[in-house]
């Protein structure tokens, strides 16, 4: 099996789908000759030509509209938003239009679009490059929101997203792009959207996370093990829809939960997850479900970024609280 970084796995997934399906089109700002600012589309234009992999003029709203239009012509667009902080420019195109087309056409039209975008913090970008806006997208009915945490998951989830007949927001955490390699099969495979993955088994407490925070949870779990606490780490992989079956199974086993997100605390994914847990499993809980999040400010200026972002110590602190409740 090949060892790949997450960005290589992502490129690989697009290459496979460009090969498999001539309706797949990859486009966005700088994705052509330049191979994307993170090199996610490296080599794809050369391999598949300018008609299948191309640069767009600089306008996110038009990238969204273009994807929508191409979908109406039977294509399977895979546009890139260069950094997810720029998605505000495309909010009507995505949330106002793409997300609603199946619904407003009475099920007669659909938009099989996969919008890829780097997001998440910790890599010292300027303003509006590093936000965690998955909650904003997850709040929009009609969209699926996928967030891989490993190279293996990234490839299988991206292929599944491209093949999905509904619009998918595919968010790639910038910190995970090149920070480690993992085993990735060379052949094609898919990972079903909406299925979580237990990244570590444990019996004392459940940690629910996605994206880069999965790794902070795994690190916390290692530390906690030294104190004899066995943490189970659930990687949601898809934050809309969420695999509550896997979450509940774990809750019933551990009876204690901490939900971890890199995003700010207010109105986020964690609130939604906790609401579901208490509705479905309150009698299994031995302690309140706690959250680890960033504080409710706009994303931190780089000089305060390290403290602002949640880390494994914050997770350990909250785990100790639910254990000692």
């Amino acid at each position, binding site marked *: 099996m090949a060892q790949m970084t997450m960005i290589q796995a992502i490129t690989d997934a697009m290459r496979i789908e460009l090969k498999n399906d001539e309706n797949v089109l990859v486009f966005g700002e700088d994705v052509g000759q*330049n191979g994307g600012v993170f090199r996610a589309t490296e080599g794809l234009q050369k391999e598949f030509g300018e008609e299948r992999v191309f640069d767009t*003029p*600089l*306008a996110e709203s038009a990238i969204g509209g273009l994807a929508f239009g191409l979908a109406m012509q039977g294509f399977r667009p895979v546009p890139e938003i260069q950094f997810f902080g720029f998605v505000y420019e495309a909010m009507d195109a995505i949330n106002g239009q793409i997300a609603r087309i199946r619904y407003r056409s009475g099920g007669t039209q659909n938009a099989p679009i996969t919008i890829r975008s780097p997001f998440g913090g910790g890599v010292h970008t300027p303003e509006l490059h590093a936000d965690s806006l998955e909650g904003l997208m997850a709040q929009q009915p009609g969209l699926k929101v996928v967030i891989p945490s490993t190279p293996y998951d990234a490839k299988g989830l991206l292929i599944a997203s491209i093949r999905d007949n509904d619009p998918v927001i595919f968010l790639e955490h910038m910190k995970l792009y090149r920070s480690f390699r993992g085993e990735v099969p060379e052949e094609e495979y898919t990972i079903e959207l909406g299925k979580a993955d237990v990244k570590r088994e444990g019996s004392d407490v459940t940690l629910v996370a996605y994206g880069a925070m999965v790794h902070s949870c795994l690190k916390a779990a290692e530390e906690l093990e030294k104190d004899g606490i066995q943490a189970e780490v659930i990687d949601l992989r898809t934050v809309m829809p969420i695999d509550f079956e896997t979450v509940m199974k774990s809750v019933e086993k551990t009876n204690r939960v901490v939900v971890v997100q890199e995003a700010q605390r207010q109105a986020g994914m964690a609130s939604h997850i906790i609401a579901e847990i208490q509705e479905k499993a309150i009698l299994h809980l031995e302690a309140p479900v706690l959250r680890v999040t960033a504080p*409710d400010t706009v994303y931190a200026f780089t000089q*305060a970024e390290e*403290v602002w972002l949640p880390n494994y110590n914050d997770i350990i602190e909250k785990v100790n609280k639910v254990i000692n409740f």
Partner: protein
Amino acid sequence: MKRTLENIEKQFETFQILNEEGKIINEDAMPDLSDDELKELMHRMVYTRILDQRSIALNRQGRLGFYAPTAGQEGSQLGTQYALEQEDFILPAYRDVPQLIWQGLPLYQAFLFSRGHYHGNQMPEGVHALSPQIIIGAQYTQAAGIALGMKIRGKKNVAITYTGDGGTSQGDFYEGMNFAGAYKAPAIFVVQNNRFAISVPVEKQTAATTLAQKAVAAGIEGIQVDGMDILAVYAATKEARERAINGEGPTLIETLTYRYGPHTMAGDDPTRYRTEDLDNEWEKKDPLVRFRKFLENKGLWSEEEENKVIDQAKKEIKEAIKKADEQPKQKVTDLIKNMYEELPAHLQEQMEEYKAKESK
């Protein structure tokens, strides 16, 4: 159907005063600048070139953060800024830090902006500006609002805003010009056409031959200027400013320029999308080279004088970096403090939480 496009495009000729050899080719358009003012323009360009070189070096040493190189664009950046009055309002993009500095933003604050410290965004008293815009195009619609505000208040000032060739593809670009045009608001829209938006060449950005012609659809004046000719840039901006404050509406100024360096210092590699030939072609048009020749011919500039500016720039940059280093480290509680005029209860709670963390 009558064809109009070709006729319109033909009218957008590049406005130039000083050619590549440093010769005045358009005497009639020569702005009314004293010898001291001409020297000041050169002083600023030399200083800004050194600042760019030092900023790149400091970034490589890890002593600066986000930085978008400016070398090549001095004529365009400083020529427009020099035509402003202190009460005018600047809405810059991320590459337009020099305009802020010459309008009065202290150097150490420019460095703090680069490092991601909020004090870098706090404009000092007397500098009417926003900190550099990251979202391409956002400043264009905002400029319309600032200009309309000036008009309502009866101020004799302008709002000037900057974007690049890539920025002209954003809806905001058209919306801003169209609003300002509809209100005849005193705005100046500058497009610094350095031929590339990161890697994407301007030819792929639009079917239009010039970017200046995009003014036509908004019903406002547009002009294409040789951005490597600081005199032409200055003259065009000065005129746009006059017309704006006389109630004659906004102007779009396209400056033809080039950035010699990478897009930013965060891993961009121009050899992936630009040829060396193109780089060389544009370096021949350098704004400093031609203006230096022009001044030397007039006996207004010498190597000695240039060296004095270089030394002064280096010394001031060193002092500014030291001052930036001495600023208190930014804390999460500083960020929380600046969220609302009055902190809501949940943020007060978080404030306490982070105070405790920070005092550990």
